[in-house]
């Protein structure tokens, strides 16, 4: 075990995958000599050469589509969008070509698409988005979103080993802010939820950066026993873990950093309202970024993205219900 940042954990995972499997290669804009816009791939090109750590032209459809081709030829491409926001430019290749290939014609597409996502640092409307729900709503894609360094490395390994296209949401605001103990050897983390904090009065369901906000809020709530469930995998959703937690606590708050309407949290809340109705002791509350592009100016951005304070407030209201 070693203390690693979230970013280092992802780098480590990439390095281990490249070292361990000849069919793995990394591709994206400026991922080579420059080491990526966030330096996640720093040093990898020097270590593995320009064929296996490939700089791509600014062509998101080209990156995703050619990765699909390489994948069906037996490779395991791991691609980076420079910011998750740019995946919109390769959207069609991802949802229509990669996602449906196996169902339609039986070919596997073992492709990982890394999406540096999320806000919190004045990135503005095009460098702060959380597009995961689009891909949850696209059959054939898996979507994972680690919140800790340990899970980041483990979920990345599992994503690379998976024979299906996996969208890997890595939250930029966790990159250097979050440190944790990470095993020094390769390991895979299952695509299932994790109880980040056990509790009995209320469940807060979150993923990615919001897990940390939820944990902070839970700490603040003296006297209440708040469970925090870290989804980790958004598609597939770990329905059992969600329902189990709600059965235990009877109250639930679902958090999204993404825009509210049709977000991951909408699916989670609707699942609970359907399958855990009998256990509920209060409304299924949601806290999410409202349906607004992420504004640049810090007071505005801070006003829209859920914070620990607002999570705590929503918890208090629910606890009092």
């Amino acid at each position, binding site marked *: 075990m070693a203390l690693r940042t979230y970013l280092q954990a992802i780098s480590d995972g990439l390095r281990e995958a490249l070292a361990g499997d000849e069919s793995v*290669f990394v591709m994206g804009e400026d991922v080579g000599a420059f080491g990526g816009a966030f330096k996640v791939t720093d040093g990898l090109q020097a270590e593995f050469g320009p*064929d296996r750590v490939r700089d791509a*032209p600014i*062509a998101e*459809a*080209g990156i995703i*589509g*050619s*990765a*699909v*081709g*390489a*994948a*069906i*030829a*037996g*490779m395991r491409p791991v691609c980076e969008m420079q910011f998750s926001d740019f995946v919109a430019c390769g959207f*069609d*290749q991802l949802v*229509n*070509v990669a996602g*449906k290939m*196996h*169902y*339609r*014609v*039986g*070919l*596997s597409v*073992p492709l990982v698409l890394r999406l540096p996502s999320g806000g919190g640092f004045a990135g503005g409307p095009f460098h702060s988005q959380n597009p995961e729900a689009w891909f949850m709503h696209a*059959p*054939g894609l*898996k979507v994972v979103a680690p919140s800790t360094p340990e899970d980041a490395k483990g979920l990345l390994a599992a994503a690379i080993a998976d*024979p*299906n296209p996996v969208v890997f949401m890595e939250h930029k605001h966790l990159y250097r802010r979050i440190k944790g103990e990470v095993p020094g050897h390769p390991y895979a983390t299952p695509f299932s939820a994790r109880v980040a904090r056990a509790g009995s009065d209320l469940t807060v369901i979150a993923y990615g950066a919001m897990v940390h906000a939820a944990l902070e809020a839970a700490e603040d709530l003296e006297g209440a026993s708040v469970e925090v469930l870290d989804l980790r995998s958004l598609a597939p959703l770990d329905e059992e873990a969600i329902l189990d937690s709600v059965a235990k606590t009877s109250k639930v708050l679902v958090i999204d950093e993404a825009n509210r309407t049709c977000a991951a949290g909408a699916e989670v809340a609707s699942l609970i309202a359907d399958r855990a109705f009998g256990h509920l002791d209060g409304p299924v509350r949601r806290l999410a970024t409202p349906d607004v592009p992420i504004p640049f100016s810090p007071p505005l951005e801070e006003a829209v993205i859920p914070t620990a304070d607002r999570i705590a407030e929503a918890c208090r209201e629910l606890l009092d219900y």
Partner: protein
Amino acid sequence: MLDAADRRGLLRAMVLMRAVEERGLSLYKQGKIPGSFYDGRGQEAISVGATWALGAADAVCSPLIRDLGAHLVRGTDLAEIFRHYMGRENELSHGREGNVHFGDRRVGVVGMVSMLPDMMVVAGGLAMAFKLRSEQRCALSFFGDGATSRGDWHEAMNWAALYGLPVIFVLENNQFAYSTPTSRQFAREPVARAAAYGVAAVSVDGNDVEAVFEATREARERALAGDGPTLIEARTLRMHGHGAHDDASYIPTELLEEWLGRDPIERLASRLGEEETAAVEAEVAAQIDAALARAMEAPMPAPGTAGDDVFCVGEPVTLGEGAAPWSGFAAPDPLPAAA
């Protein structure tokens, strides 16, 4: 380079393509093929000629709705194709896909997606993998004149040239995209753009199967020699409507008549002579009857299977190798017993 047996094979494949599509059209009109129906009437020389030039390990990614011939040359089982068309149980698509949206991965064919020309980008990725692994293989992709207007066309062209990929792009310039003539799609012919990317280009008579073959053979040699991609323009005319629902009344009669005189099958047939042609036609008709009879025995898929296989479980399934008639390779048994 082509010998008499090759020519007979080419004729057979084109006649087969046309006959399968004619049969398909009547099955569609009888309600036995659901959805819609598309064919490649008049364009048989392109998919047949181009695919004929490939090696067994080369990939076709992908034949489009005018390119049934590519599937036939690669060795896709005919009964399977009919089952697929009719939405019956089959190993190509399990009823999940229809019309020419299929590909037998076991013979190196990647089924197309509708979004044009996405598969050109994917073909580039296949070629990238081949090159990365230093394999002597290439990928071939078909696309229409209309598809050249889309951004993915550009990204595929740039990618192929930048990395010098072993990929062959076959442009089927049939003068129309659905109802839209090329004059309303672009101001300059796409074949002229290839050079601006650094992609070699050649333009051939798309109704001359030997010309298409020869251009593809050369492009393949270039690809395997490490000399990069080639764009082959095959000039032709779509002789039917866009699909069975379209009477193509927007195509001038004189234009159709002009191209009727250039029918690719008649052209090769006249070279081979009446006797040989008649033999091929009879052979093909019998083959279709037999395949269709087998296909008709297949049940419709069980509703309970609709949700199967969205995800792959276990080891990844990759491309296999197909028949390569010209180089003498025939995939031993492309289809398992089930077929």
